[in-house]
C-alpha cells in the first residue's frame, strides 16, 4: 500500500519534468501566435523593431545573439583548450588541484557579476582603445567569452581526462614528445567529447542574459561593425518585458523567447545526443 503510494509519488515527480518542458513550449507557442499571424516570416527576417508603430522584426536580436555567441566562441575556444591541456597534461599534481578547483569555482560565480565587471572596468578600456561608446558587440563577445571560459575549460578537461593512461604511455614509449601525445593521442581519442563540451558551452552562452545585458547597448539595429551597439534575444527580453504595453508587443517578446528556446534546445541536444553520447560509447 505505502509502497504503491511511494512509487506513484516518485513517478509523478519524474513525469513532471517532461510535463513542464512540454508546457513551456505550449505556453510560449500560444502566446506568440498573435505575432506570428501578424508578421509571418517577417518576424525573423526584418530588423525594424518599433513598439510605437506596432512593428516587430526580430532579425537584429537574433543576429546579435548569434554574432555575440560566435565572437565569444572564437575567443574562448583556443584559450579553453589551452587551459584544458594545461590542467590535464602539463601542470603538476598540486597546481592541477588548485587551478582545477579555482576554475570550477569561477564557473559558479553569478553571471551578473561578470556583466558588472564588464560595464565598469572593461568597457572603459575598450572605449579608450577604439573610441566610441565601448558598449556593443565586441564588448558583449569578450565578456561572454570570459564568463563561459571556466565552464568550457572544466568540461573540456574532463573530456581529455577520459583518455586511458595506457594509450598515452605507449605513445611516450615510442619516443613521442608531450605535444605529440596531446595532438596524436589525446585529441583524436577525446575528439567527440571535446567538441560536445564546446557545443554545450555554446548552448549556455547563447541563452546568457546578465553577462551581456550591461554591455550590449539594447539598440534594435543590425550592427555594421563589431563596435556598434546592438541587442540580442535575452537582452531584449530582460529590458523590455516589463515595459510591453500592447498584446502584440507581448506576443512578439514571447516569440523571441520561443526562438531562443528552440535555438538553445537544438544546440544542446546536438551536443548531448550526437557528440557526448558517442564519446560515452567509445569508453
Amino acid at each position, binding site marked *: 500500500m*505505502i*509502497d504503491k503510494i*511511494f*512509487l506513484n*509519488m*516518485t513517478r*509523478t*515527480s*519524474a513525469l*513532471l*519534468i*517532461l510535463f*513542464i*518542458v512540454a508546457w*513551456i513550449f505550449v*505556453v510560449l507557442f500560444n502566446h506568440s501566435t498573435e505575432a506570428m499571424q501578424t508578421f509571418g516570416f517577417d518576424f525573423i527576417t526584418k530588423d525594424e523593431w518599433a513598439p510605437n508603430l506596432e512593428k516587430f522584426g526580430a532579425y537584429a536580436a537574433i543576429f546579435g545573439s548569434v554574432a555575440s555567441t560566435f565572437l565569444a566562441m572564437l575567443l574562448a575556444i*583556443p*584559450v*579553453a*583548450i*589551452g*587551459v584544458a591541456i*594545461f590542467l590535464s597534461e*602539463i*601542470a603538476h599534481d598540486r597546481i592541477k588541484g588548485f*587551478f582545477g578547483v579555482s*576554475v570550477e569555482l*569561477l564557473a*559558479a*560565480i*553569478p*553571471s*551578473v*557579476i561578470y*556583466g*558588472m*565587471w564588464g*560595464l565598469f*572596468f572593461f568597457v572603459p578600456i575598450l572605449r579608450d582603445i577604439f573610441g566610441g561608446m565601448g558598449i556593443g558587440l565586441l564588448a558583449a563577445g569578450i565578456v561572454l567569452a570570459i564568463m563561459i571560459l571556466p565552464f568550457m575549460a572544466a568540461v573540456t578537461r574532463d573530456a581529455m581526462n577520459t583518455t586511458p593512461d595506457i594509450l598515452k604511455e605507449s605513445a611516450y614509449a615510442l619516443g613521442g*614528445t*608531450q*605535444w605529440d601525445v596531446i*595532438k596524436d593521442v589525446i585529441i583524436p581519442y577525446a575528439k567527440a567529447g571535446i567538441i560536445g563540451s564546446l557545443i554545450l558551452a555554446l548552448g*549556455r552562452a547563447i*541563452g546568457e*542574459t*546578465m553577462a551581456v545585458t*550591461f554591455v550590449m547597448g539594447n539598440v534594435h539595429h543590425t550592427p555594421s561593425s563589431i563596435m556598434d551597439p546592438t541587442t540580442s534575444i535575452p537582452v531584449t*527580453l*530582460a529590458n523590455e*518585458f516589463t515595459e510591453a504595453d500592447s498584446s502584440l508587443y507581448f506576443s512578439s*517578446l*514571447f516569440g523571441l*523567447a520561443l526562438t*531562443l*528556446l528552440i535555438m*538553445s*534546445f537544438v544546440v*544542446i*541536444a546536438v551536443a548531448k545526443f550526437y557528440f557526448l553520447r558517442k564519446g560515452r560509447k567509445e569508453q
Partner: protein
Amino acid sequence: MTATQKRIIINRIALGFSTLSAIIALAFLFWILGVLVMKGIHSISWNIFVFEGSPPGYEESGLKHALVGQLILVGLATLIGVPLGIMAGTYLSEYGKNSKLAHTIRDISDIMMSAPSIVIGAFVYAIVVMPMGHFSAWAGAIALAIIMIPIILRTTDDMLQLVPGTLREAAFALGAPKYKVIMNVVYRGAKAGILTGVLLGIARVGGETAPLLFTSFNDNFFTTDLNEAMPSLTVTMFNYAISPYDDWQQLGWAAAFILSMFILGLNIVGRLILLAGKRK
C-alpha cells in the same frame, strides 16, 4: 636541425602556448575576483544589514530588503524544488533504471539544465504573473524551482546508483518493502551525495537574475508578503549597477560581494561533504 630537435622545439612552443593561455585566462578571472573583493570590502558596512533601500543620497540605506528577499525566494524554491527533484531522481534510479522512459526523462532534464533561464522567467510570467495580475514572490520561487529540479534530479539519480545493489538485496532478504529499502538503506548510503547535490542546486539558483526580472520583480522596501513583488540581491544588484548614482553602485558591489561569498561557500561546503563521504 635534426628532426628530433625540431620536434622538441615544436613541443616547447605548443606547451608554452597552452601554459600562456592558462595564465591569461586565470589573470582575467582573478582580475574579476580582485575587483569584486576590493569593491565589496570597500562598500560593506554595518548599515547594509540594518537599513532597507532608500532614494540615492541618503546615508541610511542598505540591503536588508534584498538580503531577506533573497533568502525567502531561494528558501521557497528549495522547499518546492528539492523534494520534487529527489523523488524524480529516486524514480529514475530505483524504478525506471534503464527503461526507455527513464532515459528520455534523463535526457530532457539534462537539456533543461542548460536551457536559457530567462525563457523560464517568461514562462512563469505567462502561467503565474498574468493570471494573478501582478508580480509576486511565488512566481520568482517557482521559476527558481524549475531551474533547480533538473540539477537535483541528476545528482540524486547518480548518487543513488552508486549505492551497491547487494545492500538493497540484503534489506529485501530481511523482508523489507521497497519503500523502506529506499528510505532506510539507499537514502542513508547516498546521504552525502544528495546533500551535495542540494547545496550545489541552491548555489546555482542563488545566482540567477534573469528568471526573477519579471516574476518576483523588485522592490526597494522590506517585505515578507509572498503575494507581492519581492526584492532579491541579484535584481537589486542589477538595478543599482545600471543606475547613475555612486552610492547605489556601491550598494550594488556590496550585494555582489555578499552573494558571491554565499555561493562560493555553498560550493566549497558541498565539495567538502562529498570528499568526507568518499574518505569513509
